[in-house]
């Protein structure tokens, strides 16, 4: 029984890491209808920047600064590479964002070198764990789960109850109509890049003690984050979190039942099945997905 719970805890840890990346995918998708394949790079940038900054300032300040810096980078990327494109096709956006991810990765290699970095644990050290009736949980897992829950709730409020959030959603629903209503669609897109860069960077700081961050962590995280975003149904952040937990726990149990080497086989197989059987995702709405403009 304890063992079972220990596997669930491991699954939740995996799930939280995936969820943080998936949320970033969803925000940009929601406003622009595109998948930003450089999302993993935002996570990496956040973790690496915070690691550098923490030499000069206390950890919480370093994390906030890293988030702000990554946000600015996100905005710059949108302004320089995306903004001037007129009605870009999906394929073109995919190529651009993949190109950007390579560019950011190589730049990071030049700045930080090839080493792995880890922020210190927010509470305790790398060996601290909380013992809940025989189940051991690292305090960082609580931080990760807590902060991502807060982020999801805040995002929900933002998109549903604030004017800016509603404007962003309007952009996603129908860009032409949104513009006719006086919404600056271009600014909304910039803003969505900033928001997802910020969330990615914050995620990078939270998971850095758990997974370590190096210049090439971004793409690995992006693959899992993308899987989860698809699994939950693109564009739905709450669904992404649920899907991330499902995938994380399934992966964790697959280790229990099968040799550990099959962990990724399980997750990729699940993604393929979902893509075949229910392309709109576990919680997605097929009709709503069809309305999206491509």
């Amino acid at each position, binding site marked *: 029984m304890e*063992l079972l719970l*220990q*596997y669930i*805890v*491991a*699954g939740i*840890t*995996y799930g939280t*890491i995936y969820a943080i990346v998936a949320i970033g995918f969803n925000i940009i998708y929601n406003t622009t209808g595109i998948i930003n394949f450089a999302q993993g790079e935002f996570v990496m940038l956040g973790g690496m920047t915070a690691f550098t900054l923490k030499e000069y300032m206390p950890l919480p300040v370093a994390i906030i600064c890293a988030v702000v810096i990554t946000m600015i980078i996100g905005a710059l990327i949108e302004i320089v590479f995306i903004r001037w494109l007129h*009605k870009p*096709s999906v*394929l*073109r956006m995919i*190529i*651009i964002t993949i*190109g950007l991810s*390579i*560019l950011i990765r*190589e730049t990071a*290699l030049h700045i930080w*070198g*090839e*080493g*792995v*970095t*880890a922020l*210190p*644990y927010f509470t305790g*050290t*790398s*060996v*601290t*764990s909380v*013992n809940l009736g025989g189940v*051991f*949980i*690292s305090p960082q897992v609580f931080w990760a789960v807590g902060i991502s829950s807060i982020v999801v709730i805040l995002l929900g409020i933002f998109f549903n109850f604030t004017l800016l959030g509603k404007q962003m959603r309007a952009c996603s629903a129908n860009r032409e109509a949104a513009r006719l209503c006086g919404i600056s669609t271009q600014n909304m897109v910039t803003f969505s890049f900033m928001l997802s860069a910020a969330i990615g960077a914050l995620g990078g700081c939270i*998971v850095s003690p*758990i*997974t*370590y961050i*190096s210049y*090439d*962590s971004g793409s*690995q*995280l992006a693959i899992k984050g993308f899987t989860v975003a698809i699994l939950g149904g693109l564009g739905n952040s709450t669904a992404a979190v649920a899907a991330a937990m499902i995938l994380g726990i399934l*992966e*964790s149990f697959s*280790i*229990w039942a099968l*040799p*550990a*080497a099959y*962990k*990724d086989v399980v997750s990729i197989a699940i993604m393929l099945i979902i893509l075949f059987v229910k392309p709109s995702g576990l919680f997605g709405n097929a009709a709503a997905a069809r309305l999206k403009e491509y």
Partner: protein
Amino acid sequence: MRKKGEGVMKFAQILATVMFMVVVFVSPVLAAKDTVKIGALLAVTGPASFLGAPEARSLEMLVEGINKKGGLKGKQIELIIKDTGASTEKAVSFAKQLIEEEKVLAIIGPSTSGETMGIKKIAEEGKTILLSCAAAEAIVNPVGKYVFKTPQKDSDAVIKILEQIKKMKLSKIGILSSNSGFGNAGKGQIEKLAAERGITIVSNEVYDKAASDLTGEVTKVKASGAETIINWSIEPAQAIVIKNARQIGFTGPIFQSHGFGNIKYVEAAGAAAEGVMFPAGRLLVVDTLPKNHPQKTVLANYKKDYETKFKPDAASTFGGHAFDAMLILQKGIEKANSLDKEAVRTAIEGLQGIVGTAGIFNFSATDHNGLTIDAFEMLTVKNGKFVALDQPEAKKAAPKKK
């Protein structure tokens, strides 16, 4: 999607830009006249960049030094470093390029065992000397005429660990290894050698080399009743393993491969790294070596040169493997007094008592590694520093972990 043609043009432009950038980032090769060309296939980036990057730096440093002193037989060395990114496919195509187009005298590298095994045959067929910086014993067993390697054998590392486990009177081990050539080779060696020593493998798990959390894997090993864990990988995952194992309350000793010999892993793992044991060359504990140790001068000099030149990077045993490879090649050329591939190859086979960073090399026609198990020292981590396991008192004054 108004104008299809326009989109395609833009797409082509972007693709061209990206490709241009890729070309620019790959280090340019300067052509020079009347030089001796030496190729290097190193995983400077990618998952094994911990090996490749210090290897490339060490090589550049050593070659610069040799060139300043007049080069090899009066010719300047032209070092051609290719970044394989730890991909066997890339290593294969670069190896062909180096042998067929560049016509190099010798190739140093690759950094990883998987890549080396991938190009072993190519080097043999191309009759080009290959000085691998990778650990797997399979590289030199069976012996390939042109293939040498400078790191200690992984089988010796495994024996060293198993002997230690026996000494500690433990008998049930759990193996964790990454799905890389290195992990796979080490796992095979442990499986083969454990049984002979009466040690039972109760759990044997392979994980993805890019894994970001391994709580599930270590939970399984702990549940199997393992008294100790041996982890075999070169990736950052090896630091994650020890951290997760301690978090879920595994209290037994943890052993790592010689791939753990990079202080960055210790820094990343923090408190979890304390007490981890692993076999390694003596570079990491050079400060505590007695003055009369035969390797002391070589190690101290390499460490000093590297750390002055590449501050704040700390010297690692891996960079030392490339240093040794170049050193052996240099000695071979000097001994052969020729730049002929065949003559140099024969000369290397006859080199004796070459003091390198990994140990003292004694090559023969049947031994293309030249090192014995004595090249390994059992190390452990104490207060965030590497110390020799047998003399943990020697470094009592070590500064506290920051």
